[in-house]
């Protein structure tokens, strides 16, 4: 049998395989240069960008827990101009689609950031972060209120022609509702999940382990939660779903695709093993060969449920 086809599409973004890196776990690209062959990735999703530079939360920002991490970085970033100036020249050379994760503190800010990226050479799409649990304004406040989600996605849609991918929060009672809101507001795809709101207490000091008190759980522990949410979201919409949350090998990535994801993103596992994405891509290909499937798109939503 010839090698299976791994190409997939998300909106107007054509990817050589369904495996991307998740926002916040791969920086802006150059940090892993020399260790990760970025040219092999389906796409790169860079860390969240806001209109102006943002300093983020005080440390401690990260704590390790059983099967994962709880973080409250607080979206520290160099702002649109700083990012485009410092990192886009590097990213353009890599021959891989660049998806910029963006956020704002108001509907207007989200729209303005989206507009600023429209026409920036080398940017293929925007992931709209309406689900960060670690900032006071913006983020999850938009992702857990149906009206606010509709407004912010519509405003971003009007501001850009780029492939628009709202990133959904797991912290809602009905994920199908939010996926549908995104689709109706003109999104080209949805991605999920963002981190799960969480808290860790240091029992010696009786203080929260994070300076921000609460944070977001990521890593292997969240994977089954994410699979359930991806499955429910994918059933509710026709637009592609990007599955993420706790992928540490091909098995978890394939689960997302069987649940209905057209593409997947590897996040926290990059910290454990920077070469994990290559192993996930190879593992998906081996799985397709083993199962006699000629095209990766044939396993999207193929769960027998």
């Amino acid at each position, binding site marked *: 049998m010839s090698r299976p086809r791994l190409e997939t599409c998300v909106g107007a973004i054509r990817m050589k395989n369904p495996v991307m890196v998740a926002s*916040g*776990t*791969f*920086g802006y690209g*150059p*940090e*892993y*240069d*020399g*260790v990760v062959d970025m040219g092999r990735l389906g796409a790169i999703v860079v*860390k969240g960008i806001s209109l102006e530079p943002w*300093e*983020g939360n005080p*440390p*401690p*920002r*990260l704590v*390790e827990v*059983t*099967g*994962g*991490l709880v*973080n409250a*970085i607080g979206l*520290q970033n160099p702002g649109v101009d700083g990012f485009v100036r410092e990192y886009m020249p590097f990213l353009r050379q890599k021959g891989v689609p660049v998806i910029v994760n963006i956020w704002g503190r108001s509907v207007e800010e989200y729209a303005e950031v989206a507009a600023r990226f429209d026409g920036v050479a080398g940017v293929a799409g925007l992931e709209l972060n309406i689900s960060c649990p670690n900032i006071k304004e913006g983020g999850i406040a938009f992702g857990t209120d149906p009206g606010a989600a509709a407004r912010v996605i519509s405003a971003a849609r009007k501001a850009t022609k780029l492939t628009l991918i709202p990133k959904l929060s797991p912290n809602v009672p009905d994920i199908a509702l939010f996926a549908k809101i995104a689709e109706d507001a003109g999104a080209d795809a949805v991605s999920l999940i963002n981190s799960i709101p969480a808290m860790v207490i240091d029992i010696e000091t009786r203080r929260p382990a994070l300076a921000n008190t609460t944070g977001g759980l990521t*890593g*292997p*522990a969240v994977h089954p939660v994410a699979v359930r949410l991806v499955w429910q979201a994918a059933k509710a919409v026709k637009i592609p779903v990007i599955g993420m949350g706790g992928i*540490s090998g091909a098995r978890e990535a394939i689960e997302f695709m069987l649940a209905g994801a057209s593409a997947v993103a590897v996040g*926290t*596992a*990059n*910290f*454990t*093993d*920077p*070469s994990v994405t290559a192993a996930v891509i190879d593992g998906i290909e081996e799985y397709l060969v083993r199962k006699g499937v000629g095209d990766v798109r044939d396993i999207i939503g193929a769960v027998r449920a």
Partner: protein
Amino acid sequence: MNNMRLENAKVIEHKQFRNDYRLLVLECPGVGLAAKPGQFVHLRIPGQEPFILRRPFSIFKADDRTITLLYKKIGRGTTAMESIRDGDLISLLGPLGNGFPLDRKGIFPVVVGGGYGVAAMYLLAKQFPQPGAVFIGGRKADDILCVGDFEAMKWQVHLSTEDGSAGSKGLVTELLESWFAGDGAGRNVEIFACGPDGMLKAVTRQAEKRGLKAWISLDTHMGCGVGVCLACVCKTRDEKGNEQWGRVCKEGPVFECRRIVWSDDVPTKA
């Protein structure tokens, strides 16, 4: 392009050094050659699951074939390392971070090391054309490390312990203070330090008081180790006095001490 590599390093030797201190010798030729004094490596600890983060270690010794780490069992990761055996393969990412400046000409180098922090200073000391003075401190005699390594390089060695079981009784920064008033007076000193935050903060205050440069290496919990996760930040100030969060793994772990904005929460004792 970074000079870091991701290698499966073979364990040449893993043995107890003293009490909770252990030596780990790893075969990783590319990393050993590329490593600069003050840089670190990020190890994936075998058998650590379900915990997933790598652990950062400063490099004690390096040559064209191996690197040696001297570490103390202090937490979950270093406890899990007990199971490492000779011949095991360990995933190693490195060398990482900005090390010590190596262009300091005409200075009298003063190294200050607290506990296992002194192990991060050996490679630095070795590259100075002339010996300097090293101040090694710890809680008790067992925590005083690397004395022979510095003596072999003809460095002046000054020891202190908090309980007085080796060297002078008290903090290493108090010993340094009295040296400045005596033997150290009039020398063109630059300080290089690694140890607990309290010691580094005290060194910073001494350097500021005397108008000296001090290069300090911070020891923090890290996530990625390469600058993407933004977890291991400390408050820094640039030349204009603007403050921002600096990544210990990327901008550091070595900073000129005036770049660090010390929190009031860090006690100095001295």
